[in-house]
């Protein structure tokens, strides 16, 4: 079994790419990597494109990370998705945006492009772009989109969305059911595609950072962190210690707020409103403490390249301490209530079971992965400061049902409480921000060797690992940036998890995954 380093060394390494390496490889090496993915030895961390290149971020058996890139001669490249299904939607998305054709891809339907943009391949360059702007608008999307067939006696279809019956993000679900039993679910996403990558290209770092923080509203801290870390890696900027710790504090508060809200919401979908009410109160307390500590309930735009935008005051510290104390008091009773309510357990236990093998194949992160036996937490591995100095467990279960996903979150709430306390106890003093624009590389946007600089980061959001990759070019402008939400590898698994369950359990399954629409659609 080759190591990822062998492949990267076999290619042409890119000069300034940090902290992990990237190499431009030949098709043969590309295919070798695909083989490793298909055989289940490696995991796919991301696949994205530029006008004439595809990139693939990989994680090998010894948890080494690297990127391989392939020049697409004639706008084509050998499809990864044909041998490794987790790449399928990523390749469809890249085809829509850049017009690159994955050769052999079994599913060539458009994914993000619903035929409404007025252009095709909006991010393509050169000839393809010219051709794109000249192309007439596509036929209306829903009418022309072919859903996969499911055939059999007395099957019926239930179309749901994009507008759902609640305060939910838009997406379309096509159920095929036999009576009450779901035999197939097919998702159609892309409704909230905002063209974030397109907006980032050519933007100053600060504007791109704002966009990154708005990729998925519930993960604004995690996205800002991923983006900032990628910028800092590219420019070789060292962030002040206090900022590093404050960032972790924000990240844990965000995780707490989301987990608390979702645990309640899952129970709510099982018609157990009491949990929802109590969890909603705790979530609100966390948001208020975050507001007191950092001046914004969701802590938006508080993490910036170079550090953090606002310092933690005495009152802020007190607010965070008191919310931790309150959750420590109240949460155990709620956990007990969850565990002892038979009617609730009846809905969550054995519902929406997701097999560990699938989770491994898709390298699913977060509670979806950890509830089905995949032990991966970006805070641990590859890891980033200050987590190397903090004590915490990564909870793991094998059952893979709704109940397991709830329990992983319960355990993570407990871990985040402890992490928050540890951070407050050991928070170092000093400055909170360095000037990124003043960094020597950024002024010119060119490294000593004369090329642009590239950076990458993998950060653990509440949903799982978020990948950020970017290149900074002349004048310190973002040349291109790709953000990969954990949901890319979780959405397809929801389709698998719902199979054989009753339609009425879909909300429960869906909420226990809580995949991001906006983060995925970008």
């Amino acid at each position, binding site marked *: 079994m080759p190591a990822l380093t062998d492949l990267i060394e076999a290619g042409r390494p890119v000069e300034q790419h940090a902290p992990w390496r990237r190499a431009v490889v030949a098709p043969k090496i590309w295919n070798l990597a695909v083989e490793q993915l298909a055989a289940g030895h490696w995991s796919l961390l991301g696949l994205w494109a530029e006008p004439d290149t595809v990139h693939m971020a990989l994680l090998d058996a010894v948890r080494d990370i690297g990127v391989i890139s392939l020049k697409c001669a004639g706008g084509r490249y050998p499809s990864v998705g044909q041998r490794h299904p987790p790449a399928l939607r990523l390749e469809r998305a890249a085809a829509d945006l850049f017009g690159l054709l994955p050769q052999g891809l079994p599913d060539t339907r458009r994914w993000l492009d619903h035929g409404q943009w007025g252009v095709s391949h909006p991010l393509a360059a050169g000839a393809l772009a010219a051709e794109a702007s000249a192309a007439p608008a596509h036929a209306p999307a829903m009418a022309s989109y072919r859903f996969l067939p499911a055939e059999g006696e007395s099957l019926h279809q239930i179309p749901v969305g994009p507008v759902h019956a609640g305060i939910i993000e838009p997406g379309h679900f096509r159920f095929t059911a036999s009576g009450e039993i779901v035999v197939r679910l097919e998702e159609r996403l892309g409704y909230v595609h905002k063209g974030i990558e*397109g907006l980032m290209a050519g933007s100053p770092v600060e504007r791109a950072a704002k966009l990154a923080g708005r990729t998925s*509203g519930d993960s604004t801290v995690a996205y800002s962190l991923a983006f900032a870390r990628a910028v800092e890696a590219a420019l070789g900027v060292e962030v002040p210690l206090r900022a590093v710790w404050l960032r972790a504090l924000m990240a844990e508060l965000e995780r707490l707020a989301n987990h608390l809200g979702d645990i309640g919401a899952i129970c709510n979908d099982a018609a157990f409103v009491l949990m929802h009410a109590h969890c909603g109160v705790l*979530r609100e307390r966390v948001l208020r403490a975050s507001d007191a500590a950092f001046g914004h309930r969701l802590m938006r735009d508080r993490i910036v390249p170079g550090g953090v935008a606002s310092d933690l005051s005495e009152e802020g510290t007190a607010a965070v301490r008191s919310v931790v104390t309150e959750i420590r008091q109240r949460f155990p009773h709620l956990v007990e209530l969850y565990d002892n309510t038979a009617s609730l357990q009846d809905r969550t236990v054995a519902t929406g079971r997701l097999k560990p093998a699938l989770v491994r194949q898709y390298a699913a992160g977060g509670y979806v992965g950890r509830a089905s036996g995949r032990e991966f937490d970006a805070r641990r591995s590859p890891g980033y400061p200050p987590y190397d100095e903090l004590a915490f467990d990564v909870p793991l279960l094998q059952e893979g049902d709704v109940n397991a996903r709830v329990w992983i979150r319960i355990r993570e709430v407990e871990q985040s409480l402890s992490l928050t306390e540890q951070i407050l106890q050991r928070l170092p003093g000093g400055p909170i921000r360095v000037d990124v624009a003043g960094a020597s590389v950024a002024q010119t946007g060119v490294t000593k060797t004369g090329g642009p600089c590239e950076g990458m980061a993998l950060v653990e959001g509440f949903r799982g690992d978020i990948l950020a990759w970017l290149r900074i070019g002349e004048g310190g402008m973002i040349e291109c940036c790709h953000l990969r939400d954990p949901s890319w590898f979780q959405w397809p698994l929801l389709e698998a998890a719902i199979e054989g369950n009753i339609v009425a359990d879909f909300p429960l399954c869906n909420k226990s995954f809580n995949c991001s629409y906006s983060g995925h659609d970008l």
Partner: protein
Amino acid sequence: MRKHLFEGLTRLPLTERPPKASQTAIDELARGLDGAARKRLGRSLSIRAVDAGSCNGCELEMHALNNAFYDVERFGIRFVASPRHADVLLVTGPVTKNMREALKWTYDATPNPKWVVALGDCGRNGGCFAGSYAVVGGVSEVLPVDLHIPGCPPSPIEILKGLLALLERVNAKTAAPRG
């Protein structure tokens, strides 16, 4: 379970005093709500939330309106599952082109009289996403907007202020004798 219910009886309510309706919101409404058929609304407001490309931040704060602190139902404001039950469409996002059609359909499915509230900076003019090939850039590009509630996202209090302004305005109109 019994313990929780019992506690609920003895603990003081968490619900907070309602905020004063925001003046700018009222001013905007004064211009926007000149129509006649507002009588039927009474003292309740049914809201249908439509995410037309939000980052989901605005939705989180909308959800918060239902928690025990804000408890919007006490104002007669409630979120409903269908546009056919709604008086108000609360629309978020820079309106992606992929959602424009669905947003229009939702509007068409909402019975008259109806109001459209654009929530968040995105809903106002596309916010950060304005200028993208994939967004229309603000709800008013697609629907007639009666009220904007700015913020990124607006806090629950800000949303509440805006909605209260809408209610006050609507009710004042209803109470006024018509000539």
